[in-house]
């Protein structure tokens, strides 16, 4: 009978594939399920891509930036972004190039006016050798992604009042702006985890004390606190130490929310049936904490961390903006935005607001990623 043939146990390739997929789902641990769910969240996936690109560029910052932090060009102060051309005036195709620049003053307003010198053509070269730098302080190199021949100038995002290339400074500033939150959250993570666990596990007066401390810290307005703390940083210390001290200041406030999450999760998980089953089986308290409780709230912690990073980015930016954070010669997005403090500057040189766009992109990306993580955090629901 033909009908019998259809129902024979021979599986088609499609069915076999489906079965394999099902099997891998059954064998998937919590993290695998989370990754699977996160991959389905389109916005989070997109944000992860954006963040990946941002961090990649920050990691190889000296390579992507045509210039470095210390070099400046007195003849090209406040220059607007350089236009990139492909075809010359007479219709000749030469690939990407820039024209030479000439500066004139407006006879009436004395305002600087930059014009393109159509005679001089500087093609953009890729993988050029320019200023030498030390990558991560280890490898000596002078390779840059792009540059122009001697005599030409390329400022993708324009320059500042000292003639420094804004594009390079944004990239090099991201090395600070994007890593401080990580170092800061790492510190708050440790503080929050330890203090939250102690609070949730022991309860009683210790719990009470820690909760009150959290409340006091939360009630302090953060800006004055930052100002007070950074006033305590001695002037003229090297940038690396400065950087570390600022992370400590930021995490000093960041841990409180985390500690509360940990404590709450600890208390609710303590009453789960499987924890009681483990206790009845004679499993020791320490083992219960590390085998059942900590893995139970780890995913929530990561969500909280991710959602906490944006506020750290903004925190660093505002501190630097107010002149309390990173000091020259080091730079960050906040320091760059300091140039845009005056309204005339924004009106005359609007490109100085470009760092703001990067702050917004990074903050939004972290928020979307955190959103996706939150949806994926409990894959069993």
């Amino acid at each position, binding site marked *: 009978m033909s*009908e019998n043939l*259809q*129902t024979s146990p021979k599986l088609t390739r499609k069915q076999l594939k489906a079965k394999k997929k099902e099997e891998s789902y059954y064998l998937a641990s919590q993290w695998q399920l989370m990754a699977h769910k996160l991959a389905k969240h389109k916005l989070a996936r997109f944000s992860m891509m954006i963040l990946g690109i941002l961090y990649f560029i920050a990691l190889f910052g000296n390579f992507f930036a045509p210039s470095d932090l210390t070099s400046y060009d007195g003849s090209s102060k406040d220059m607007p972004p350089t236009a990139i051309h492909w075809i010359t005036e007479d219709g000749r195709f030469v690939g990407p190039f820039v024209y030479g620049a000439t500066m004139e003053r407006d006879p009436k307003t004395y305002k600087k006016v930059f014009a393109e010198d159509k005679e001089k053509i500087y093609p953009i070269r890729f993988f050029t050798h320019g200023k030498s730098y030390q990558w991560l302080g280890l490898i000596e190199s002078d390779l840059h992604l792009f540059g122009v021949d001697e005599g030409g100038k390329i400022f993708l995002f324009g320059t500042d009042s000292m003639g420094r290339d804004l594009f390079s400074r944004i990239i090099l500033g991201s090395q600070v702006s994007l890593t401080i939150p990580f170092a800061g959250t790492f510190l708050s993570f440790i503080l929050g985890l330890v203090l939250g666990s102690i609070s949730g596990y022991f309860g009683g007066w210790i719990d009470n004390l820690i909760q009150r401390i959290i409340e006091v810290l939360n009630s302090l307005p953060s800006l004055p606190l930052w100002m007070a703390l950074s006033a305590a940083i001695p002037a003229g210390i090297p940038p690396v130490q400065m950087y570390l001290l600022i992370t400590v200041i930021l995490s000093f406030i960041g841990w409180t929310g985390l500690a509360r999450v940990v404590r709450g999760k600890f208390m609710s998980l303590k009453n789960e049936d499987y924890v009681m089953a483990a206790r009845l089986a004679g499993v020791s308290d320490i083992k219960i904490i590390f085998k059942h409780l900590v893995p139970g709230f780890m995913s929530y912690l990561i969500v909280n961390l991710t959602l906490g990073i944006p506020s750290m980015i903004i925190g660093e930016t505002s501190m630097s903006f107010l002149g309390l954070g990173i000091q020259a010669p080091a730079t960050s997005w906040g320091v760059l935005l300091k140039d845009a403090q005056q309204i005339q500057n924004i009106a005359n040189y609007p490109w100085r607001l470009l760092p703001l766009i990067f702050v917004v992109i990074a903050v939004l990306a972290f928020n979307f990623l955190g959103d996706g993580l939150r949806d994926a955090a409990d894959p069993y629901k």
Partner: protein
Amino acid sequence: MPIIDIKDLCVNIQLDEGMLTPVQGVSFQIEAGQTMGLVGESGCGKSLTSKAILAINDKKCRQTGEILFETDKHEVVDINKLNPRGKEIRDIRGRQISMIFQEPMVAFSPMYTIGNQINECTRLHITKDKKQSKELTLEVMKKVGIANAEKRYDQFPHEFSGGMLQRALIAMALVCKPRLLIADEPTTALDVTIQAQILELMQELQKELNMAILFITHDLGTVAKMCDYVSVMYLGRVVESARACDVYKRPLHPYTQGLMGSVHKIGTLKQERLFSIEGTVPLALNLKPGCGFYDRCNQRIEGLCNVVDPELCDMGDGHCVACHRCKKEATVHE
């Protein structure tokens, strides 16, 4: 003319993994004053069927088939064709068809008093007059046996016990004198003594209002007490449908037989073992043709049951069953 006549109702949900068909071709009808029991285990589609009648299923659910409802103006409307957010369905929902839920504790908002919440329903459907609606509300609260109704009117849900809340929920469902009451596991969350009270209350009110009741449950005991007719569902299909006494005395479908065998009838001598159906209910995902119960059936006919969908056939006296084996035996007898 039945109050509600459901014909070939299907509910589909498109998932990434494939097509989920929690309800496939359900048909039944209920007349005024009758109680129909919809019995089945979790995941058999009984709740989705009831939600389809009120058109409150999720947007992702695609419904086909007909749900013919006779309104109080004696017109017949197909609920499936109405706009689920339209005026017509809102007039039917709550006023002509109402529903009681399983968990009375979560059916009320903790922010408003009980009286306030029942009153909302009255004001929406019956009268805009504040005084009159409050009187109506108090009347219905007394009717469902809430003692001290005036005082209770101003109390909040947390001041009520579970049984009292379920009474209040019934009051809310009945304040508009609906033609059809859907009771989705109304007593599952309650204790036995309170369950008995609630069931009795429902029966009394049914007599008084002559309404039809769709009683959804997995508990064979309450069905025996409450229902005139029973439809047994398995994997989205009605597998057996008959008068309640017929189903209990002479279950025909192997699934119904298994279900009856797996509960111990209280007050009878002990059997050593309960009859149990092997395996578990499969997910209604990408269903193959043939009887849904095939894998777990102890009376299956290979080559027939797993190939052809069994249809619901009348075995005489209104006792319908969807089983190839039963049909075969019936024809042999003739």
